[in-house]
């Protein structure tokens, strides 16, 4: 056994206010220990991570659907059109005059004329029934004037359509934007459900993480007692559990990203096959760096906060 009086002179040199690098070293050690602890019970740790991942995935998918719907809507915006189907008796000159009249209307930005012959040609081409026009003695398709209104909003389009209703030789007025309105309403609904689901899921995840952390604290009650007996604060005793909560959340976020990616790949290839038929250059949205980062970081934050909420009172209650 050594004499210690010689060592006492340089005691108290680095305590009380640890420097930043000391702080980092200490945190790194705690972080590593918490990590190793999670690995000691891989099955139950993974179960928690998996539940968090599924919870995060649900609102993420809804947000994806909503993002894609609104990008579809953005593409369609300003494409409201009114089709005027003419009666069979209208002559080419009448059609031309009418379209000129319409063009002078300040509510109309452009007018396209589709003659009945053009309509039949397009129909044959689109259906592949190329010899249809030859077989038909009489063209059953009417000539159409496609009117693009200046204002694409539903109300002014409806007003314009009502005004065009009485025009001579016009048999039928059809507004082509109703399905866009329905799509917009559906997209709105999806977005709102996504928000509500997010709140529910976040609360649920707090509960799940909290419960896991509470159990962990209960299992390590003796250790917390010892830590407090030698001068550890509540915050010090809670630190490893906060790391655990954060790991659960980060793990859940990463797993959710992977699952989302898998779903995206599967869905996208099916969608591209479909889109090819329509020669559309539409691309799926909602999967990228930002959404993955949001999932992972959001998961980590939820895990950490859930652990804070759970450990706060429980660790304070252990007071030797």
């Amino acid at each position, binding site marked *: *056994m*050594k004499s*210690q009086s010689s060592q006492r002179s340089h005691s108290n040199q680095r305590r009380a206010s640890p420097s930043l690098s000391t702080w980092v070293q200490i945190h790194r050690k705690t972080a590593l220990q918490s990590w190793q602890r999670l690995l000691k019970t891989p099955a139950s740790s993974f179960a928690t991570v998996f539940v968090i991942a599924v919870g995060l995935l649900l609102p993420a998918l809804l947000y994806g659907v909503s993002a894609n719907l609104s990008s579809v809507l953005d593409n369609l915006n300003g494409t409201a059109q009114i089709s005027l189907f003419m009666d069979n008796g209208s002559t080419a000159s009448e059609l031309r005059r009418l379209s000129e009249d319409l063009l002078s209307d300040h509510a109309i930005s452009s007018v396209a004329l589709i003659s009945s012959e053009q309509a039949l040609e397009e129909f044959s081409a689109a259906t592949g029934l190329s010899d249809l026009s030859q077989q038909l003695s009489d063209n059953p398709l009417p000539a159409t004037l496609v009117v693009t209104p200046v204002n694409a909003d539903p109300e002014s389009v409806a007003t314009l359509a009502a005004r065009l209703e009485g025009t001579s030789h016009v048999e039928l007025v059809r507004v082509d934007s109703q399905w866009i309105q329905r799509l917009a309403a559906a997209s709105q609904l999806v977005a709102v459900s996504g928000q509500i689901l997010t709140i529910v899921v976040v609360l649920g995840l707090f509960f799940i993480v909290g419960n896991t952390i509470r159990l962990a604290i209960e299992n390590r009650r003796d250790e917390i007692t010892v830590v407090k007996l030698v001068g550890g604060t509540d915050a010090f005793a809670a630190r490893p559990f906060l790391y655990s909560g954060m790991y659960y959340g980060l793990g859940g976020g990463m797993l959710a990203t992977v699952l989302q990616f898998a779903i995206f790949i599967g869905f996208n290839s099916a969608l591209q096959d479909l889109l090819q038929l329509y020669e559309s250059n539409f691309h799926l949205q909602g999967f990228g760096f930002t959404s993955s980062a949001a999932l992972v970081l959001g998961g980590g934050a939820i895990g950490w906060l859930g652990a804070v909420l759970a450990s706060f009172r429980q660790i304070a209650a252990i007071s030797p």
Partner: protein
Amino acid sequence: MIKFDNVSKRYTGGHEALSAISFEIGTGEMAFITGRSGAGKSSLLKLILAMERASTGALFVDGVNINRLSRRQIAQHRRKIGAVFQDHQLLFDRCVFDNVALPLEICGYWPQDARRRVRAALDKVDLLRKERLYPEMLSGGEQQRVGIARAVVNRPSIILADEPTGNLDPDLSADVMNVFQQFRDVGVSLLVASHDISLISNLDCRTITLEAGKITEDYRGGGG
């Protein structure tokens, strides 16, 4: 350094473990607390550590009333005290080294500093060679010495020891007392609960005798 002023401790069951205790331990003073099992020795030490709260009376450590401390202040207060517990209170999933390093970790020591101090403390109790073992691989006496090393590693201004030599043979007990006396010589106040009468009488220190929660004798000692 430590001052009991008419302190009583009544546990929730109604049992009065300490009644009207008044005494004072100065800076650099070493005192034994002795008495039969159940006399209240551990209760007295627990009051100083703020593990229990006095029912009546005032208890001052370094001029601060312990009964008035907040949670955070209790943690700060315990860092000034090195405590050896009757039931060791070791962490069983950490090795000897990490157990002894715990108080330094809590205080935020630079790890290199901590390593040096832990080694020095383990050397004092002759456990340097077992620093990588876990407490369950140690004998009762070795566990006790780990607790002693942890109590002294942070160079506290007060050392409280509850039966620190309970599981030790006379040679090791004398060694531990030697370590304690070295701390006393550099100004540390020590309060040691023990019923090892022969050890106490050998040292001829101040000895407070408890009987059913009351001080029946306060022998001032000749050896300091």
